[in-house]
């Protein structure tokens, strides 16, 4: 079957998913009546008659007097145009799109760093654990990954804080940069030259090495927590998938060819065990995004997740709905990319 036909089919499947996703968010924001939708788009700073006028304007714009499916349609139009409403939380107050612009880069950097860590740590350990099955190292790895798997993310974070932050005092564990340093760089305070909204990168761009180093230290614990929370399942799944592959007929044939054990493991077994892991990457993204909410909250790391919990705790409907939609879009996109990559990489065309 033609790979492009598959990709087109996959893209077509995206349409119902996206419609469903937006519909779900719309229904959620609509659940207690029109006023919540209105609240999303009402600039919280306005008062008095100006507010009245806006309510009228919004009612007209979103056709709030009409049946709900008409409202959905107009809401969808607004969302497509980039009008996601307003958010009002202690960490940010204003246009949702501005909030996303501010918080999203931090979350992206955090999750990407964690994802890289996960694969660097998880893949070799998982394979090693399977290849040296029942050895002492395998037992330790299994107990370790089992325990990590059972731990709530926040406990992993707190444990790291207690050990590395409180007991050894080697790493900071709150915010993205030390408060004492903030005054030393004017570009941050004034918000003038703030191209990526990620202090670590911005500091590097400005050549502020001291700030960058400090930001990097702040970055280690959140990234490590997020990575540890997910890596356990990667190790476990990879181990069992590798063990399954090692039982296959073609591995027996490879051995009967007289290939060195190293070649059997590295070429014949690993390739087959790692290929399905690509599809697992989509699941990893889901785990990472969910985990980011908790991790960012614990470490006061200014990402989407932190903003979401703040919105949640402060009853800010604009923030909640926007981040739900945003996370959904990211996940859908990630799954799409994974499926397409997999279609290209796996020679067995199985779709």
């Amino acid at each position, binding site marked *: 079957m033609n790979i492009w036909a598959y990709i087109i089919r996959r893209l077509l499947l995206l349409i119902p998913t996206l419609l469903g996703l937006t519909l779900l968010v719309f229904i959620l924001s609509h659940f207690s009546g029109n006023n919540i939708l209105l609240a999303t788009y009402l600039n919280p700073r306005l008062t008095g008659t100006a507010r009245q006028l806006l309510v009228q304007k919004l009612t007209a714009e979103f056709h709030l007097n009409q049946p709900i499916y008409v409202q959905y349609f107009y809401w969808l139009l607004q969302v497509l145009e980039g009008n996601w409403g307003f958010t009002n939380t202690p960490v940010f107050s204003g246009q949702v799109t501005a909030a996303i612009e501010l918080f999203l880069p931090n979350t992206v950097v955090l999750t990407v760093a964690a994802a890289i860590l996960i694969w660097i740590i998880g893949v070799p350990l998982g394979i090693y654990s399977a290849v040296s099955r029942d050895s002492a190292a395998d037992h330790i790895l299994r107990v370790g990954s089992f325990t990590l798997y059972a731990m709530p993310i926040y406990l992993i974070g707190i444990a790291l804080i207690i050990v590395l932050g409180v007991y050894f005092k080697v790493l900071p564990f709150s915010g993205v940069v030390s408060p004492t340093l903030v005054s030393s760089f004017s570009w941050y305070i004034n918000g003038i030259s703030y191209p990526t909204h990620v202090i670590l990168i911005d500091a590097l761009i400005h050549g502020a090495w001291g700030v960058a180093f400090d930001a990097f230290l702040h970055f280690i614990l959140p990234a490590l927590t997020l990575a540890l929370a997910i890596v356990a399942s990667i190790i476990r799944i990879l181990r069992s998938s590798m063990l399954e592959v090692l039982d296959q007929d073609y591995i027996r044939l490879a051995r009967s*060819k*007289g290939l060195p054990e190293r070649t059997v493991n590295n070429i014949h077994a690993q390739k087959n065990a790692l290929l399905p892991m690509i599809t697992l990457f989509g699941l990893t993204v889901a785990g990472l995004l969910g985990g980011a909410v908790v991790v960012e909250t614990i470490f006061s790391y200014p990402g989407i997740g932190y903003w979401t919990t703040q919105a949640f705790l402060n009853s800010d409907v604009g923030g909640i709905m926007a981040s739900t939609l945003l996370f959904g879009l990211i996940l859908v996109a990630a799954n799409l990319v994974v499926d397409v990559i997999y279609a290209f990489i796996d020679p067995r065309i199985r779709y």
Partner: protein
Amino acid sequence: MEYTLNVLNIKEQFYTRRGIYKALNGVDLQLKKGEILGLAGESGCGKTTLGLAIIGLVPRNAAIIEGEVLINGRDLIAPLREYASRNSKKFNFRKSENIIKKLNQQLASIRGSMISMVFQDPMTSLNPVLRIGFQISETLVTHQPEMLAKRKLARSRVTDIDLRDMLELLKNGADEKAIRVFTESKGLQGIEEQVLNIWSRSDLGEAKKEKMIVSLRSTKLGSFERAILNGVKDRRGMGGWMKIPGLSRLPKSILFKEGYRKAVELISTLEVPNPEEVVKMYPHELSGGMRQRIIIAIALANNPELVIMDEPTSALDVTVQAQILELMRHLKQRFNTSFILISHDLSVLSEVCDRIAIMYGGRIVEVAETDMIFKKPLHPYTTMLISAVPTFQTTEIKGISGAVPDMRDPPDGCMFNPRCPYVMEKCKIVNPHLGEVEQDHSVACYLYGD
């Protein structure tokens, strides 16, 4: 008598949760050079276990408690036996796994070069994510890198005139030997098999063959490449710098390229159509019959002394099975290799085997030449097995009453005694040993003496 393979009193057990499964209970087997031996029996009789034990591929819950597998006098499975005899009471999975890993390392130089195996299911035996050519050339690069180097060097040295001379010779009906003499006189060893293979291909027209032979001469090799190939050819450096991961990549990629060429030649002799395209394919693009040919090509790639074929045609259709059996008859003539052909189907064995051994309950109960097994079966089990198979002529078939023994708790004495119509008192006490009752006809049954 010099035997290619000598299996002596091999006993193998599997440790399972429900008890010890006694898979092999003292098997003796000899195989002459160039012989095809058939191994027949019903499921659970231990025929596949025996095949795997010979090549040393045992599962991790297996223990070989006794016996030897001698290939050209070398004892293959000694470590397993020694481990099992040291730990006869307790069985430890982790230790057994370590022993098996060590055994795999030890046998790596023998497997694929001296002894190789073809497995039952062609659909699952090839690695789904590696190209056919890679899977064939892998075994060549591992065991015969110098041969590959020689081929490539010969191609770089050969001149147009040499090739045209050879073509002339072939057109005048020269045989293999004449070409060999010619290449040796020119110092071009390695080119002759390439020329001969192209010439003997039946899927190509003459004009194309000529074109291919003339274009065998390759462009000049770089001096670095030449140095590497010379090193590989003289087996220099293979032990040393070839092992360093980064450095070995270049020679390996050169050798693999050559391996693909050799793979094309190999599978073209196995009558695979369009071999040039097939080597670039993945297994799932081929039919079952074609995959089995590829697996046979892998097994034969290094001209091994012994090939064990475990039910090579059972998963295939009758007409495809006929193709493969036909192919095996050709191979028997071409290669001077010994085969062990394992099958539950006596009629398949009767087509290609010189001798047939019948297994029951982890033992060989009868061995004889193929004709003798059918004309004059001695063991009651053999007789009953043959009369249970329906053929075009038969109007009456007889099943064997009773069931195969539970090998976790096998009967005392002869394993067949609970189902045997001629059972005697002593059958239930002591196992009869396999003795020669006629020339080249051995049977393990008290009906024919002790």
